[in-house]
């Protein structure tokens, strides 16, 4: 009977396309918006992801996310080092500086200061120069996108000098980094030098990066650091989660996207539901004839659900395909962040399933109550 259901469905070309359009539209909107949302969320943690090598991040108790800097006294480094189970601990400076571009205009930059001795957290995808060059005086490494932003169209020139917070900086390398939420240029330097760029303050230490001894779990050691120092110590994974949770709960971003997704869902359901209902009504005599000829209501129900599922699968494929195509086509040159993890696909599939289920509900009632005797009426 299912092949009959599908033939009935596809045989009604105009209605079929209408229903598929409604579902595909909703799937596209949901998948695309959810992917942009995920893209944005992943931007919020790009700074954590880009700093590799440390399993534990230690910070002030009141830090809520990675850009929420609450400086610590330098002595906190030694307190962390003293906690049993800590293999090593180093300083990390993270702040905003003002870089002067040649023509006299200024650009906000993210300044990262890495531990002088170990350079823990150094960039891993160098494009020009090498990390070791950071050890030369006033040396900085800049991210490719930031360089392009500060000096559009100009090729990279090793040894280029510019001013940051009125102090000299020399570019010794370019690196690839993840895009950041504010999309500021990212500049790496040594901790001791970063502190000199930074405005004079009593406390300058942003984070202590640490790692647990090989035989200890980072989670336990982090808990021990917290207990012993009163600082906030969490694993890298937990810091990622904490940052994303902050953006989820404390900003209006998720609500904005949720509204669009909901609109896509509602509009898709309305279009698909209405067209599906019209399709069923148009075929009501056919269903009546099938019932007269001895098709039970259970089978009729299965047929309608199979029809709904069919448009669901096709519409889902088209919608998600188009969303992926969109994401692929804006890759690289757009300000939009696009990230489609499998969860987005699962959520879209669930939404589409719900749409076709809702869309068929009204129609199912209509089909189930149809009196087989109608087929005798002219």
């Amino acid at each position: 009977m299912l092949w009959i259901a599908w033939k009935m469905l596809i045989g009604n070309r105009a209605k079929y396309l209408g229903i598929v359009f409604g579902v595909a539209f909703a799937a596209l909107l949901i998948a695309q918006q959810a992917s942009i949302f995920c893209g944005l969320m992943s931007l919020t943690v790009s700074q954590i992801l880009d700093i590799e090598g440390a399993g534990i991040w230690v910070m002030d108790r009141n830090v809520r996310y990675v850009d929420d800097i609450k400086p610590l006294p330098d002595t906190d480094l030694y307190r962390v080092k003293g906690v049993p189970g800590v293999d090593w601990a180093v300083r990390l400076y993270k702040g905003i500086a003002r870089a002067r571009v040649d023509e006299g205009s200024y650009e906000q930059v993210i300044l990262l200061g890495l531990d002088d001795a170990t350079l823990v957290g150094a960039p891993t995808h160098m494009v020009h120069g090498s990390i070791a060059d950071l050890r030369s005086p006033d040396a900085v490494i800049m991210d490719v996108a930031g360089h392009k932003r500060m000096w559009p169209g100009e090729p990279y020139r090793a040894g280029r000098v510019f001013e940051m917070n009125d102090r000299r900086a020399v570019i010794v390398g370019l690196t690839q980094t993840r895009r950041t939420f504010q999309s500021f240029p990212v500049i790496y330097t040594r901790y001791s030098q970063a502190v000199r760029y930074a405005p004079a303050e009593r406390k300058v230490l942003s984070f202590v990066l640490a790692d647990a001894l090989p035989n200890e779990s980072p989670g336990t050691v982090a808990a021990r650091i917290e207990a012993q120092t009163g600082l906030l110590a969490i694993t890298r994974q937990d810091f990622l989660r904490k940052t994303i949770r902050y953006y989820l709960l404390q900003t209006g971003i998720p609500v904005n996207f949720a509204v669009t997704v909901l609109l896509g869902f509602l509009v898709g359901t309305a279009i698909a539901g209405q067209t599906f209902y019209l399709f069923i009504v148009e075929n009501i005599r056919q269903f009546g004839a099938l019932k007269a000829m001895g098709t039970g209501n259970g089978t009729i129900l299965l047929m309608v659900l199979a029809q709904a599922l069919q448009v669901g699968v096709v519409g889902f494929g088209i919608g998600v395909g188009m969303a992926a195509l969109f994401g692929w086509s804006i890759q690289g040159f757009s300000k939009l962040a696009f990230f489609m993890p499998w969860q987005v696909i699962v959520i879209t599939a669930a939404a589409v399933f719900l749409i076709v289920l809702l869309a068929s509900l009204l129609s199912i009632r209509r089909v189930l109550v149809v009196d087989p005797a109608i087929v005798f009426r002219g």
Partner: protein
Amino acid sequence: MTTPPDTDQFLSAESAAAMAVRVRGVTKEFGAGDAIARVLRGVDLDIPYGELLMLVGPSGCGKTTLVSIIAGTLGPSAGEVTVLGRDLVAMGHAAKVRFRREHVGFIFQSFNLLPALTSVENAAVPLVIAGWRRRKALEVAADLLDQLGLGDRLTHLPGELSGGQQQRVAIARALVHDPKLLVCDEPTSALDAENGRITMELISRIAVQRDRAVIVVTHDSRVYAHADRIASMEDGRIESVAVGPRKQSGTGA
């Protein structure tokens, strides 16, 4: 209740067990209160196996309502309906659905073919409903369409066929599962004279069999020649049942 004078005499020769359809005192009302419509007002009717009964009468007298009740798509308000030895009134919904699936063939005035299915697929529908494999069902349907002269139209859609051809596909669909009761409601009234004649000839030649009863609602007097019996209906009652030309000429089963 009117009992046609020639009915008793004629039917007394046949045992009740030989009746494919036995209707007694059937009434049907639609609506309630002031808006009540008494459509059937006490119908008695018998149809033996192996015969073709034509049900005739003016429009609105209740013919379609009566055959719907006999076919099991509609329940009576009162009375007894026994078809193929089974009491339809006592039958539950699911049993009635199964009864129709297994034992009843339908031919409708407006064909009611599925427009998205080809001729052979349409003709195979009752077998598919009965749970047959698609391939086997299509094979059987194709054979039958061939017998009906549509061997070269198997893969045409209903929209690509003439009215007469569509009704022949409908005949194949009505007979493909070898039902013991065939119910046709005005099968020729949507067709021109020539196609109506062909359709009725096919029904009378192929459908009528020893173990099957055929009931044809019509008000087309040109097809009376194919009737074993003609039941005249008026205002919700059977007024008379007369022996038809087919029985008289001995071509009946």
